């Protein structure tokens, strides 16, 4: 199955057409209504799985109350298309009656309203209602760390069925909705025939599949996956993480709401216990089996589990029982394997997590093998990129008259009782390169984290190009033009080089969900341009990264990962580039090569602040060096001056030498 994702697009298209043709003629194969009904149920669960896949698979948010949104969509249709509510008739209802959304029952003062909202209207409306609940519920909770979110959704998943059970006037309580009307087309009711439901289900799955496939390789899909891989790095790349998580949550809820309407229209009754926790877990098992984040995996997982429950286990039980009767074994003739299906779910979850985390259809990741020629090729050094776009951005800023200078004043950061930074001040002039050095634990990374909004200082100010940065979110700070790399490299490990660098451009792309799904020309052009820009940036590193552009970054060498991280930071088109130990893990030749490139960034108009241990690199690059020790500024000045400072030698070099 793993190879399926790597088939050439043409072969994939042919396979898909064959599959689709089979699915379209399936009802005519005359296998019986029950089988078509099972197939329609498979479609409903595949649609649910596609929705949960966006939340859990793409965005990495564990949602254990997913069935609640399924319930909301189901009851939205069920209530608005049955005799459950029957308010007294008044003329205010007349407009709705005119378009067939309600009907008048009885006459005179006893007349009541009968809700007959059409199925086709309710499909999107239910999706919107469920998504609305998703937003209302997600907005306060999505700020929470991922594991808390799981518990909160679990609580929500409990509350909704209880409310449905207890709010009898609206939902008919535990007895469930009676006689929900089936959909109709041009006055032709679907009735009880399974076939039309099957086609509607198939259509829903195709639609949701299409939406998922469009979103995945887009600005939004990449942002979701970035959040999943490393939420902090995602924020530092300008992704408004809360808003994008909310979008994923609402979209998943919308898919579930839509499916709920379909499911209830088909079943024509709804009870609260149809939406309890086991349903949420079952959908989770489906996407884990198929492969988290894998669109086709979600569908295949859903179909497999439905068939397991509705067809395979019962048939197998029947066979075992027949065998038991034949050999007169009461144990075998009473064996009911269907009761074991939840046990099988548990086993699937554990074994998939332990042995095959990618599922049976891994989310497509192209593992491009390099040719021997490429592997053996001599390393070519790239020239500085023709990064006109970069310099253009800087030139615009310069023209606007805003000096892209950083001014830190009296910055103090405390962690509990520990003072990590004590009243530190420093300046990075526009177009300058400033280096911060100091022993481990001296506060260098805390300084970086304060500037980029990952740590909230307890005092002082940080001004960049006229903006106060303290109190701003990381993604807002990035929008002002401050980009960074991390000391311990925070790339998105399961994404490719291309995807990582594309995520750097998040704030410069404008595509919204609707434009992406509709495939608007502007969105496509923007995406093309973004990919070209990535190639231009990577050309800076010669042939080191270009051949590996579709490889997962986890497979790259350490030095190459550093380069990708720098390229990702540059892709944000920053005015201030902050590099945290950029040459760590590189040999001297590579370090010097990178140092030259960093010097080149200045020529493009960038301001650079770096933390660096290698003093030769610092000496070669920095206009000014700041020495931190125990959170305080120990010395400041040109590199060769600082190098001779007694206190610095004592604190940094001397002690470092002793410790080494």
């Amino acid at each position: 199955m793993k190879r399926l994702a790597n088939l050439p697009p043409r072969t994939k298209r042919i396979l898909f057409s064959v599959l689709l043709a089979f699915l379209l003629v399936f009802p005519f194969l005359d296998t019986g209504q029950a089988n078509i009904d099972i197939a329609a149920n498979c479609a409903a669960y595949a649609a649910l799985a596609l929705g949960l896949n966006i939340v859990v698979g793409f965005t990495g948010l564990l949602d254990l109350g997913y069935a609640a949104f399924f319930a909301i969509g189901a009851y939205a249709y069920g209530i608005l298309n049955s005799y459950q509510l029957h308010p007294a008739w008044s003329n205010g209802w007349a407009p709705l009656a005119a378009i067939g959304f309600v009907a008048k029952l009885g006459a005179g003062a006893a007349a009541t309203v009968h809700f007959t909202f059409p199925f086709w209207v309710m499909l999107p409306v239910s999706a919107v209602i469920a998504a609305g609940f998703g937003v209302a519920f997600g907005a306060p909770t999505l700020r929470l760390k991922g594991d808390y979110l799981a518990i909160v959704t679990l609580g929500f998943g409990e509350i909704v069925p209880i409310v449905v059970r207890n709010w009898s006037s609206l939902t008919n309580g535990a007895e469930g909705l009676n006689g929900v009307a089936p959909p109709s087309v041009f006055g032709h009711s679907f009735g009880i025939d399974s076939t039309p439901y099957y086609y509607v289900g198939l259509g829903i799955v195709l639609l949701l599949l299409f939406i998922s496939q469009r979103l995945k390789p887009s600005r939004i899909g990449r942002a979701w996956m970035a959040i999943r891989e490393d939420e902090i790095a995602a924020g530092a790349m300008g992704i408004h993480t809360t808003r994008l998580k909310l979008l994923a949550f609402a979209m998943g809820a919308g898919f579930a709401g839509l499916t709920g309407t379909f499911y209830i229209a088909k079943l024509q009754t709804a009870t609260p216990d149809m939406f309890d926790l086991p349903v949420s877990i079952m959908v989770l098992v489906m996407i884990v089996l198929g492969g988290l984040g894998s669109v086709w995996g979600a569908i295949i997982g859903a179909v497999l589990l439905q068939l397991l429950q509705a067809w395979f286990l019962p048939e197998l039980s029947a066979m075992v029982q027949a065998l038991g009767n034949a050999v007169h074994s009461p144990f075998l003739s009473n064996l009911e394997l269907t009761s074991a299906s939840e046990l099988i779910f548990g086993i699937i979850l554990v074994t998939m997590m332990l042995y095959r985390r990618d599922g049976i259809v891994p989310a497509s990741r192209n593992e491009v093998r390099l040719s021997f020629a490429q592997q053996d090729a001599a390393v070519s050094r790239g020239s500085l990129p023709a990064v006109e776009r970069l310099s253009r951005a800087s030139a615009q800023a310069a023209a606007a008259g805003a000096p892209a200078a950083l001014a830190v004043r009296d910055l103090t950061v405390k962690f509990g009782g520990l003072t990590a930074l004590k009243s530190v001040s420093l300046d990075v002039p526009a177009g300058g390169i400033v280096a911060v050095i100091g022993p481990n634990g001296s506060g260098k990374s805390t300084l970086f984290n304060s500037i980029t909004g990952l740590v909230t200082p307890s005092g002082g100010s940080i001004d960049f190009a006229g903006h106060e940065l303290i109190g701003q979110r990381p993604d807002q700070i990035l929008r002002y033009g401050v980009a960074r790399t991390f000391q311990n490299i925070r790339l998105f490990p399961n994404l490719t080089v291309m995807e990582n660098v594309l995520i750097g451009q998040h704030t410069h792309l404008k595509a919204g969900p609707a434009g992406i799904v509709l495939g608007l020309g502007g969105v496509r052009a923007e995406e093309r341009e973004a990919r070209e820009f990535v190639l231009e940036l990577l050309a800076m590193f010669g042939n080191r990264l270009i051949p590996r552009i579709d490889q997962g970054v986890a497979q790259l060498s350490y030095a190459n990962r550093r380069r990708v991280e720098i390229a990702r930071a540059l892709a944000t088109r920053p005015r201030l580039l902050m590099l945290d130990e950029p040459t760590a893990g590189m040999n001297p030749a590579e370090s010097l090569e990178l140092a030259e490139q960093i010097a080149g960034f200045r020529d493009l108009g960038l301001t650079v602040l770096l933390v660096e241990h290698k003093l030769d690199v610092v000496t070669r690059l920095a206009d000014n060096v700041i020495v931190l020790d125990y959170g305080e500024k120990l010395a400041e000045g040109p590199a060769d001056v600082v190098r001779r400072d007694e206190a610095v030698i004592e604190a940094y070099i001397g002690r470092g030498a002793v410790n080494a």
Partner: protein
Amino acid sequence: MPLTGADAEAAHLILNGALLAIKLANSSGELKGITLEPMVLNNATATAGQYDPAQAATNARKLVGDKKVLANVGPEMSGSGKAMAPILSMADLATITPSSTAPALTDPQFAGEFVPGGKPIYFRTVTTDAYQGPNMANFYAETLKVPSVYVLDDSGAYGVGLADAFAAQAKVKGIKVLGRDRLDPKAADYSAVLTKIKATNAASLYYGGTMQAAVKLVKQSYQIVPDIKKGGGDGILSPEMMTAAGFPAAEGWYATNASPHVVDDPKLASWVALYSKTYGVQPDDYAITSYDAALVAIAAIKAVIKSGKPLTASNVRNAVQTVKINGLQGPISFDKYGDLSTRVVAVFQFKQNKAAPLADMDKQSIYIGVAPQS
């Protein structure tokens, strides 16, 4: 029927009843060359943990899609019935349920929803909760003569409907309904709600629901409100009352059955013996209604054969409507909605019999009589 999951044990007793009737009919040759072949469908799924309406709907389609299916016996639960009825109705396939007691299914008010085909297809060899609850309320008022009651249910469709019907009739009969609350069947601790009941000084307790909540309710009410009268519906007329709830807690609880109590009837002794010999378990009253349901189907098929009409589901349905037979429980016929014409609700009381096996329903409870009808 939910042959797996929480209700599996009861479902198998019912299934056996119907299978026995079919077996006897086939071996007697009364159908003149036709052999009835039972098709058994399980509507429980593990995800639901019990019956699953979606699976019931699939099964209904399986039934109507098979031209050889002339009638259905079942389902056990009303929740399944609601999903199945519209499908069966459109195909004019009769189902005879031995135990599903929700009134809505045959209520003419909901006919448009459950019998869109127009003719009743949902027949019952039991009466409905519309009688089971109220008749028990009559029993509380007339026989137990309690002045007040606190009514609980287990949040399930069956329990809520039964408790509501009981409470309504109790008010009519002048019993003060001091409270009406709902138990979470998954929770373990009902001491809070029982303490609340104790505080109201209620003279009696009525519980609508199944054993899942009842096990805990019975145990804890014995601790907190040991002296008041307690009772429930057919949901607690179960061996779990003794094996899981246990004596002395279960002692004195009343329970009803929506059919006459005939298992003990000497006339049925040979039938009971045959059933236990064939299946290795003692039948309960719903095994009898199930046997009767199968008898109804068989009688209807016989009538169609006799009339010379083609043997179709639709003709069998018409015959079921007019069936008049003597079942194990007594005379059986249906009103124009498909409900049993006789509306007998039997009342039992749990009483420990140390000499008998703990799980033996029949020995661990005594038959009080028929609850007064309104």
